């Protein structure tokens, strides 16, 4: 088997294992829902003033407080401010093990592609997707060592699977040497950091999406109704999710700022001007401004909470647009999709 085949087989295996991990983690979410149901029934049968409802009330009181003080305090108790704490079941651990295995296969696919091409494996659309998704997963796994975000697994793996599926079906190209325009140390730095930033934005996006769902659940719970996605009760409160999303996204923002600067230096070297409003430059700028807006929103009265979460989601949508649409369908100096 040559390197080309090894890379491709590793990728297909990685995708298969990711799919299994996705299923296991989805089952885990279902288990969480039934655990929530069971707890609700227990409460009802014991006709105790529901403890869940109780903690609910205090949680919403806390978020209503909204002072820096309260926020800080909540954020330091990340793991245990769920309305209904949930101890990970076996499926969760299986799902996570499969994720790590898939990640390792994914890494093999990426590294062998690089060895095969005798350069960094990020020089065309197929390779951007391959290493970009690897970085999303890497960021996710690294963040997991610090905060328990395993509930994001289905979401993140789902995203990665869709991206890998699209790119291996539509964007696959054989190994080719670098065109002169890409022969630069800045390819290594600029594209790598951009992909890393994308990894952080992706996790921030997932957290913001869950923040919105969780906020909806909390609002409904305060009115005494429940939501269909019952597993949400086992997740951290929307305020905690918001703080986490913010922290992950600002790392992404700093990396993106660096991407923008490194890209300008490269553009100066290659084309003689550091900024020319080329399509790709425009979108990199738009993304930067959206996330600057997101950071501001968090410091603007009336914009904390769901509104700022929407900005993070729009920001990530712009990242995906920049990557998936601008690279492929827009013309400009950055026509390196290799398609």
């Amino acid at each position, binding site marked *: 088997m040559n390197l080309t085949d090894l890379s491709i087989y590793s990728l297909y295996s990685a995708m298969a294992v990711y799919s299994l991990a996705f299923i296991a983690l989805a089952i885990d979410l279902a288990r969480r829902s039934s655990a929530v149901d069971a707890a609700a029934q227990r409460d009802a049968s014991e006709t105790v003033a529901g403890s869940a409802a109780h903690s609910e009330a205090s949680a919403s009181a806390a978020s209503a407080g909204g002072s820096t003080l309260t926020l*800080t*305090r909540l954020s330091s108790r990340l793991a245990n401010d769920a309305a209904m704490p949930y101890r990970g079941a076996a499926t969760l651990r299986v799902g996570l093990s499969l994720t790590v295995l898939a990640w390792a296969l994914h890494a093999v696919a990426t590294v062998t592609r690089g060895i095969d091409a005798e350069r960094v494996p990020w020089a065309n659309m197929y390779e951007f997707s391959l290493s970009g998704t690897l970085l999303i997963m890497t960021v996710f796994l690294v963040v997991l060592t610090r905060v328990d975000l395993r509930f994001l697994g289905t979401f993140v793996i789902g995203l990665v699977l869709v991206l890998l599926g699209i790119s291996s079906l539509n964007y696959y190209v*054989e190994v080719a*040497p670098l065109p002169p325009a890409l022969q630069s140390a800045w390819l290594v730095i600029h594209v790598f950091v951009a992909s890393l930033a994308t990894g952080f934005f992706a996790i921030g996006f997932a957290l913001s999406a869950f923040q919105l769902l969780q906020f909806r659940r909390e609002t409904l719970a305060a009115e005494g109704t429940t939501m269909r996605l019952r597993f949400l009760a086992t997740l951290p409160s929307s305020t905690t999710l918001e703080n986490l999303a913010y922290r992950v996204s600002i790392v992404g923002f700093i990396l993106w700022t660096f991407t923008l600067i490194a890209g300008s230096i490269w553009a100066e070297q290659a084309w003689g001007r550091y900024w020319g409003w080329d399509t790709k430059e425009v979108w990199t700028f738009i993304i930067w401004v959206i996330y600057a807006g997101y950071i501001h929103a968090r410091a603007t*009265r009336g914009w904390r909470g769901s509104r700022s979460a929407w900005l993070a989601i729009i920001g990530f949508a712009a990242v995906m647009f920049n990557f998936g649409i601008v690279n492929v369908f827009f013309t400009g100096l950055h026509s390196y999709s290799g398609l």
Partner: protein
Amino acid sequence: MQPKLGFTELLRFLWRQITSMRTALFLLLLLAIAAVPGSLVPQRSSDPNGVTQYFADHPDLAPVLDNLQAFDVYSSAWFSAIYLLLFISLIGCVIPRTKHHLIALRAAPPATPARLGRLAGFTTRQAPAGTDAGAAITAARAQLKSSGYRTALFDKNGTVSVSAERGYWRETGNLVFHSALVGILITVGFGGGFGFSGQRVLVEGQTFVNTLLAYDSFNPGRFFDDTTLDPYSLTLDEFTVDYEQQNLQAYGQPIDFTADVTVGSPGQADEAGQVKVNSPLRTGGTDIFLLGNGYAPTITVTNPEGDVVFTDSVPFLPQDANLTSLGVVKVPDGLAEQVGMVGFFYPTQDTAQSGAYFSSFPDLEYPMLTLNIYTGDLGLDDGVPTSVYSLNTDDMTQLTGGDTGVETLEFMPGDSAELPDGLGTVTFADNSPDSAANDFSKSVPRFASFDVHHDPTVYWVLSFAVLILLGLLTSLFVPRRRVWVKATAQSDGSVQLEYAGLARGDDPALEAAVTAIADRHVAGLPTGAAAVNPAKPAVSVPDQT
């Protein structure tokens, strides 16, 4: 009756609105949205040909868009208005905050709150027996100071405390970041005016001298003085291209472009240099970039008497990846009529099933030149500038090719052909007549197009960009926090220590930090004989929501 706003009140009101956080956010989002159209419609600044094409494709829509400055989005009135307002807001925001911060930098931390119990990370410790409250606080102060806190001691009704604050760099970083944004805008806005950019095409062997007239096109900045051009000379000695020939998936893809040049400066020895993509040559205060390349067939035209009326290596513009190239020759004088020629050059000529020619490889394997001849008015005397790369055939008659029934002229290097109507002779020179019969690799000279830039402000822009990054890092990652330590003498003579903190901005590590301070503080206090009362261990009271 409605109270009337005076003029100054109105101004003050407007200013407060403009410099509010809400306005800043609104303008930022507006800026993001306003930048979008420029990526959907070609821009004159980056893609002028695209704009021309757009006008041709959408003759009704284009003028409407043009009125909205859609082809010049980034210099349009509306885009400029948004970012100028944003920067006014920014300046109006940064100045008072800077003042405020300068005062805070010199001010002592605020008095210790009466009750610490509801603050972040609140925790209590029992001081070792025999500890004096005052001494405990002095020790706490020394500890906090050595960790970079600014401190102040307070004594209220017998309760001594230290109030400490750190992380002033956070605000400093934020102010540096925002000020550097202003710096970038100003250098980009005005700085660009002090430079120039010029383009010049050089065929192998040609030399150009860095003077205004030598450029094919020249775009000076508003404040640029062209007498400051350093008159160095640049000779293109050789242009080399490497094509991929091993990997069949990428066969014919260029893998290297190298322009070997000689730079001559008045009064100095000539120096050899290289220009490559991604590696400009920096000389004479300018940066020389390699932007494009192609073939420049050497074409000679003689009149029926045998006098040369035209001879030049004419750059042909590449049309595809295999360098099928299009070029134009204009012979205004010396023949019976003005003659124009439109030609295709195929570095490796091949024939499609339809009979059409194409190039199947970008290097010189089997070069062929084809020319169609036109006679009539070249339009050179109308005073309207014309491009050397296009021929306006409106006032001309086609003599070969197309519907004329006369064969297009075809040449291999070294071939000559008669012009129709006995006008004269055309020769496609072989640049390497001595090479082997099948070796065409040097038969046609190449050209390179260079971009010459001078921008005295790039390093300013770079410095501001670095400040932006550094400001951002400190502003987002240096925690700004207040910490208080309070010592209260109990009735039984023991000393109760209380610790608490307050985050100023996002500060995930605050509670851990307060706990660490407490632990270290207690550990550092001198212990009496009975170090810690075993019956009364240090307690940590969990905070209550």
